């Protein structure tokens, strides 16, 4: 029979972490608890000592969150933002992109989606105690792919002539598409 303290701890892990992570940590806590029971402690004392040794649930959940693949991926994807943004800014300014026949609604939609994606990545990258929040980067990856693909398509359709800054920005976007695809595969597999 398991002590109520241990049951409440493992329930907390199951609520806040993906099933496999919660299962592994709960098994470790259970073994720690059983070791204390085998040493002659009462159920309550064994539970208290096991939790003291294992670490309180918020600490363990926070460590899983801090080391979550989604949090790391969000940080890497955000780090590519300034480089890609600078390249595209230089390319679009030198190509006088504001003169291209792109509908205003499309520009607005693009900007809004870009902003929401950056906010989602920021939320994932700065999460300290919510593992679920780190999974926002899984949602952000296909959106980043779509934004890069849309930009490349828009340039192909509307740019009057190829320029070196456009070529550089396209290269950066293609590299980011490759990186984002690889990141998305890893995140969905984890």
């Amino acid at each position, binding site marked *: 029979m398991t002590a109520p303290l241990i049951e409440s701890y493992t329930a907390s892990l199951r609520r806040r972490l993906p099933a496999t992570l919660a299962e592994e940590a709960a098994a*470790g806590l259970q073994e720690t608890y059983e070791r204390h029971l085998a040493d002659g402690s009462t159920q309550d004392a064994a539970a208290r000592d096991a939790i003291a040794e294992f670490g309180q649930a918020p600490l363990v959940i926070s460590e899983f969150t801090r080391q979550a693949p989604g949090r790391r991926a969000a940080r890497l994807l955000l780090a590519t933002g300034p480089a890609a943004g600078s390249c595209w800014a230089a390319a679009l300014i030198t190509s006088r992109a504001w003169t291209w026949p792109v509908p205003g609604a499309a520009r607005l939609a693009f900007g809004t989606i870009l902003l929401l994606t950056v906010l989602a990545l920021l939320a994932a990258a700065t999460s300290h105690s919510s593992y679920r929040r780190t999974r926002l980067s899984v949602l952000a990856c296909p959106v980043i792919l779509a934004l890069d693909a849309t930009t490349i398509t828009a340039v192909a359709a509307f740019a009057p002539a190829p320029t070196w800054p456009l070529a550089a920005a396209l290269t950066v976007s293609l590299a980011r598409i490759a990186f984002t695809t690889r990141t998305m595969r890893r995140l969905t597999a984890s």
Partner: protein
Amino acid sequence: MRADAQALKGHLDTLLLACLENGPRHGYAVKDALRQRGGERFDLPTGTIYPALRRLEAAGLIRGTWTGQDGRRRRVYELTAAGRRRLAGDRASWADFAAAVTAMLEPTT
């Protein structure tokens, strides 16, 4: 002297890899190895070992598989080739660093 979790932070990865050097272990056994081989000097909440193992797995340094034993499911970890290379590199760096610090701390006459 006991090393707390903060002091261990920069070395935990290498210590965990070293615990897996002689064969696969599950998380609880890694914790036991860390405690025994460290002579009870390492004082960290043992629940934090599990996220660290997952991070090492994501980095390709260890491989984890679920196994069933005594009616209980456990995730067992083993070093990958990259993990063995990393451990060898870390061990050599640490030996150089420790030798340099020891030399610096020798009393001068």
